[in-house]
């Protein structure tokens, strides 16, 4: 038992690596605050485009969305980070993460918002248009508020995924939480920092998971 604590919860190492790990946490939070709105914006654009009836718009759109849902985000990231330099474009790890996430999570958010928009009865749009609201006004004031409400659990769930995805930044040396933890681990030859990082992730995200569970159960009961 004592040995286990020394190995995985070593107090001295926790104290020593704490600043490094904390810096990582800060960057994870900053990164999340950047990529979640970016992804939502991308998703909103995709979802609005999807409501256009023209098949010349819908088919490429569906292909785009399916492409970025099929493509593993890590591969996309590596492609941008390690591949682009061959084309003469050297973007830093941070920028690559931002672009990769915008493309990948935008596709997921787009699907969710599209389903949300589809779930609003067409009568709502008819009523809004018949009082003289334009297509855009009807979307903004009548459809989107209801759409978002309808798919809130899915939006929340995807946001959770996005925050977890920031850990991928560690592969391209973005100094977020996992990267910092691994640095500390390789310096100290002790896995404690990684355990600390895991606990931090858990404490940070578990409340959202609980909230999500409760929302999902409530949605089920309402059916």
């Amino acid at each position, binding site marked *: 038992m004592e040995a*286990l604590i020394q*190995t*995985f919860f070593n107090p001295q190492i926790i104290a020593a690596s704490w600043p490094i790990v904390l810096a990582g946490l800060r960057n994870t939070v900053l990164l999340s605050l950047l990529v979640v709105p970016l992804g939502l914006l991308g998703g909103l654009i995709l979802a609005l485009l999807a409501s256009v009836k023209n098949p010349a718009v819908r088919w490429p759109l569906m292909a785009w969305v*399916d*492409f970025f*849902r*099929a*493509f*593993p*985000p*890590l*591969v996309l990231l*590596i*492609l941008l980070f*390690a*591949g682009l330099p*061959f*084309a003469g474009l050297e973007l830093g790890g941070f920028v690559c993460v931002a672009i990769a996430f915008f493309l990948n999570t935008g596709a997921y958010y787009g699907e969710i918002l599209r389903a949300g928009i589809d779930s609003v009865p067409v009568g709502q749009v008819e009523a809004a248009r018949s009082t003289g609201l334009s297509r855009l006004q009807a979307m903004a004031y009548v459809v989107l508020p209801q759409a978002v409400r309808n798919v809130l659990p899915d939006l929340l769930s995807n946001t*959770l*995924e996005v925050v*977890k*995805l*920031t*850990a*991928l930044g*560690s*592969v391209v040396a973005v100094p977020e939480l*996992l990267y910092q*933890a*691994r640095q500390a*681990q390789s310096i100290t030859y*002790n*896995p404690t920092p*990684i*355990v600390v*990082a*895991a606990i931090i*992730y*858990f404490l940070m*995200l*578990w409340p*959202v*998971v*609980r909230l999500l*569970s409760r929302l*999902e*159960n409530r949605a*089920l009961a309402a*059916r």
Partner: protein
Amino acid sequence: MLRYLPDILSGVVVTIELALLIVVTGIAAGLALALLRSLGVRPLNWLIIFVVDLFRSLPPLVIIVLIYFGLPSVELSPSGFVSTWLSLAFVLMAFSEEIFWAGITSVARGQWEAARSTGLSFGQTLVSVVLPQAFRLAIPPLTNRTISITKGTALGTVVAVTEILGQASSAMSNSYNPSPLMMGAAAYLVLFFPVVVAARWVEARFAWKR
């Protein structure tokens, strides 16, 4: 370009092996947990919920790193392959338990009552009446979630698994040429794009149930 093909192909094989292992063990474990939960034993349910919450909260990469770099300290040395498999299987287990559980509880109370009142036991009701309906409800979210988790096999690169990305990366650094990476990306697309399209079809097929 062609000289990278054998490497990439061997990477494809590993990716497929890993993915299949993850899907089979993850979903089976998730189903088992959901069935256990339906027994209604309070302390057991709390344990299940805690485990599920745990694996829903942790980024898969963190779990891989924990297993691969952490366990050696207690005399266990799982390979990169095993670390990746276990991590993603645990994550899929957690998500699929939630999905199966949602499916089971969605099946109307009336179904249970009707079946039990005709004399069927708990087990028989579960198997013949509730589960078939629960499965229909579970399939669309499950296919979605499974795809998104199995794409995580790419994470294996971080722990030296010789799957597609791993092979492509090392070939690329050996040759100082982006072609292997492009081929690797193409390989992923060839593998996963059809699956995503098929999933769309599956979802549409089961959507009327709502």
